[in-house]
């Protein structure tokens, strides 16, 4: 494996070399910077990149190591953050004109945790504006391209995080997942992406899209790298009341101790119309692998799946309409230049600062919370959400985890769906239920289409049992090695 160029190597490989004194954090960071400069003009994964700051962090990392104070596997590893996660002194734009000039004065909790782990935080990654979208085309700073095919989308909303990693412009990245925004781009870019259980990772410092659905999660080249990243960012945070107080296992070590066979469920509603045949076939092969390993495979039903999309677009937009009210041009962010009065400041600043998709969701969310409509939409959606969660919990009486495609289709062409919001929303059909139910799920590579596009497999786990989920994925990955193939850029 270590025959791959530095920028395609894993955290596990690189940290071993750093620990053995064969590689310094500065050398690694320089390699990643060089690679970023080489591919960024074609991929456009970054909204901002602070080379000097990254090198300073790398120097500090090498200093710790020479003093015998290495913080562990992530010490000196370049990690990119989706541009919705706050880093003190760095831009924080959410890929929106509204925050184009905003610099965060404070750190997100995950930022502090990664810094304590010694990671070199080297750039803020492009995404759909305020994480709303499935293609990164809703970024005010232009779309990101898929490293496997530059005419195609990397998916979204965390498209920059997935594309940067796939392109070798980062060793690991963080994204956020509200309806599939980590898993779908991971699938489309041929890497691993994990959406943790709601409450496992602090949301403090994550720009809120839909608070009850948002969750930060890692992208890695391998399941092991993903486990290392998860271990660094998980845990209770007194600054986030929705973060859960639970013991965090050593996810990386658990990969070796947790072995199947597992009972895996195939939700029949996830294999119907709209599923690309090549994607379906790859997922069937993965299922066959698990069966061959002695896993019991059982068909299960999640009967309320058909309501997931509707439920999501009521709850997510309602919360978004409220969360985005603070972007008003008064205290920070974009303010219109020609306002007659206060109302004008609000209306023009927001009209100029927000893109179409964000406006669409704010309007929809405002509507479903309005007097006279609340009960029919928001309240009913919350009830359906409970039923959707119950579907999953019922399935977990029979099986340990669920196995499904991540995205119904592989990477689509840039511009292909941008005029049709509904077609775009359907990209999240297999990922959205997980957010509504608050469950952990990951996407890992399970093959390529005939035209060479990556295909993702989704494993959906039980609340706070990420260790089992990662071990299940690890078993598949060890037997396949899709992650040793890299895009030619």
């Amino acid at each position, binding site marked *: 494996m270590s025959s791959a160029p530095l920028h395609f190597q894993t955290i596990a490989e690189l940290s071993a070399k750093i620990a053995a004194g064969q590689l310094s954090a500065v050398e690694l960071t320089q390699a990643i910077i060089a690679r970023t400069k080489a591919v960024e003009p074609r991929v456009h994964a970054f909204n901002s990149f602070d080379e000097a700051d990254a090198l300073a962090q790398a120097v500090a990392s090498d200093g710790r190591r020479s003093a015998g104070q290495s913080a562990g596997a992530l010490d000196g590893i370049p990690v990119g953050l989706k541009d919705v996660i706050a880093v003190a002194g760095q831009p924080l734009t959410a890929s929106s004109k509204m925050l184009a000039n905003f610099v965060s004065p404070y750190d997100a909790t995950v930022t502090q945790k990664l810094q304590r782990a010694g990671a070199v935080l080297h750039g803020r990654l492009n995404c759909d504006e305020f994480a709303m979208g499935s293609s990164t085309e809703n970024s005010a700073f232009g779309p990101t391209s898929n490293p496997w095919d530059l005419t195609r989308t990397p998916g979204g909303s965390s498209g920059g995080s997935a594309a940067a990693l796939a392109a070798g412009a980062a060793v690991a990245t963080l994204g956020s997942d509200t309806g599939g925004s980590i898993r779908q781009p991971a699938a489309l870019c041929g890497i691993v992406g994990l959406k943790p259980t709601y409450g496992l990772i602090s949301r403090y410092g994550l720009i809120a899209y839909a608070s009850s659905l948002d969750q930060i999660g890692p992208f890695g080249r391998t399941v092991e790298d993903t486990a290392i990243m998860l271990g660094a960012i998980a845990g209770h945070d007194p*600054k986030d009341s929705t973060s859960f107080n639970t013991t965090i296992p050593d996810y990386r070590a658990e990969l070796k101790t947790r072995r199947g066979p597992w009972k895996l469920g195939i939700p029949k509603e996830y294999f119907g119309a709209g599923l690309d045949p090549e994607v379906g076939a790859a997922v069937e092969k993965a299922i066959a692998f698990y069966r061959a390993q002695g896993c019991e495979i059982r068909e299960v039903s999640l009967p309320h799946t058909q309501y997931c999309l509707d439920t999501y677009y009521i709850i997510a937009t309602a919360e978004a309409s409220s969360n985005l009210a603070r972007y008003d041009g008064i205290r920070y962010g974009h303010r219109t230049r020609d306002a007659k009065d206060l109302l004008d400041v609000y209306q023009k600043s927001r009209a100029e600062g927000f893109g179409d998709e964000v406006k669409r969701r704010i309007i929809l969310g405002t509507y479903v919370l309005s007097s006279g409509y609340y009960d029919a939409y928001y309240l009913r959606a919350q009830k359906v959400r409970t039923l959707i969660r119950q579907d999953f919990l019922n399935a977990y009486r029979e099986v340990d985890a669920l196995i499904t495609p991540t995205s119904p289709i592989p990477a689509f062409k840039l511009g292909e769906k941008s005029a049709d919001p509904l077609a775009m929303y359907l990209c999240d059909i297999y990922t959205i239920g997980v957010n509504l139910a608050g469950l952990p799920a990951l996407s890992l590579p399970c093959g390529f289409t005939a035209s060479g596009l990556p295909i993702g497999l989704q494993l959906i786990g039980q609340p706070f049992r990420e260790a089992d989920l990662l071990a299940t994925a690890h078993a598949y990955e060890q037997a396949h090695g899709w992650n040793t193939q890299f895009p030619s850029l």
Partner: protein
Amino acid sequence: MNYEAVIGLEVHVQIKTHSKVFTRVGAGFGHEPNTLTDPVVLALPGTLPVMNKAALDAIIKAGLLLGCDIAPACKWDRKQYFYPDSPKNYQISQYDQPICLSGSVEIELPGAARNVMGEHKKIPLTRIHLEEDVGKLNHHATDSLVDYNRAGTPLMEIVSEPAMHTAEEAFAYLTSIRNTMIYGGISDCDMEKGQLRCDANISIRPVGEKKLGTKVELKNLNSISYVRDGIAHEIKRQLAVVAAGGTLTQETRDYDGVAGTSQSLRSKEMAHDYRYFPDPDLMPVHVDEAWKAELRRACPELPFDKQRRLIADYQIPYTITSVLIPDRELSDFFEATAQLTGTGRAQVVGNWIANDLLRELGAAKLPLSASKISASNLAALIQLIDSGTLLNAAAKEVFATMFATGDAPAAIVARLGLAAAPTDTGELEAWCRESIAANAKALAEFKSGKDSAINAFKGPIMKAAKGKANPKLVDETLRRLLAEA
């Protein structure tokens, strides 16, 4: 036709906590603009609220003091509207599950005279809920500036039933809430600092009618006297509209306390749609019996209960209690002193506090907490007077010195030579004999049974003693000599 007014009050009380309700930055009044802020207060992207337990303790305590039912579970909602004083453009509040339900506020209406206790009533409450305060806009000629120091200060809203009928009742209600909150250490309720604010819902209806009339919400009643004047003005205005054959419209009006007038702010049609929904950033709060019991133990006796008890236990007049009661520390000081002097001298204690102590504090512009006079020293002063060692006139001087220095009265008496004199019974007896001999008329009167005639002998004695004679001793000596005469 005879009309009656129906009044309900929405009272906002700022809770006195060290930090704000959803973040750790300090809360307070009078700081440099925008110094009590942090990323959460300013609603920077990505920030989240975290509940301050001290604010919850305070509102539960307030609910217990007012006899509310404390909800076993309550949640937090977002009240949404755009205004620059609200950093998130929503206010975290409680919509349909407030933490305190029902309960009541005991009020006292003005008595027939100043020294007569007035009628007491209980005004039922609908609810008390917790929310966050907003910032403050300062308007200038061409721009407006926002100060977010106040934003995020814990605020409770106490909502009464529409159960009051006069401006006096509303005034008494607000006074009672203020006294109760101060007793509970929940708020200082300084209206000038915005710690207590009041809006009133006012309607009129024909006497005997059960249905409520068209409601007008009166805002900006930001002093206790504005509450009384504003409500009285609004009732008059509504009666005048109806008397002139007009119809009242549901609206919100702004009261101008200086001008004594009100203006319409918005009609019912212009009312906000606040789009309340549960705040997904905060977990519901569950209040168990142990928590309630802990706070119940921290609840003080209510002001009116204390007043009734002081009157019953210490036999002191209503007038004195009405001075002592609004100030919890002052009434505690009274009680501590009266316990030392004995109940029989409680009224004397009350008089010293209500008259002399408050006068000294007022003149020095000091709060009670700065007073140097301890309960034991005040009790000792009264003891010196009662024993005849100290005359009233001299006692005033001793008291002033005690206030200035905190010294024990006996030490001051010794230092300043203020003890009653002479104690030489021989000299005193001589003066008494002279006085009796010099006033045959009074002697005859006294002998014939007119006891008060004895006073006629005392003046010359005091004069001879240059005012320093112990009056008790003078009286005793006179009586002994008169019996012999």
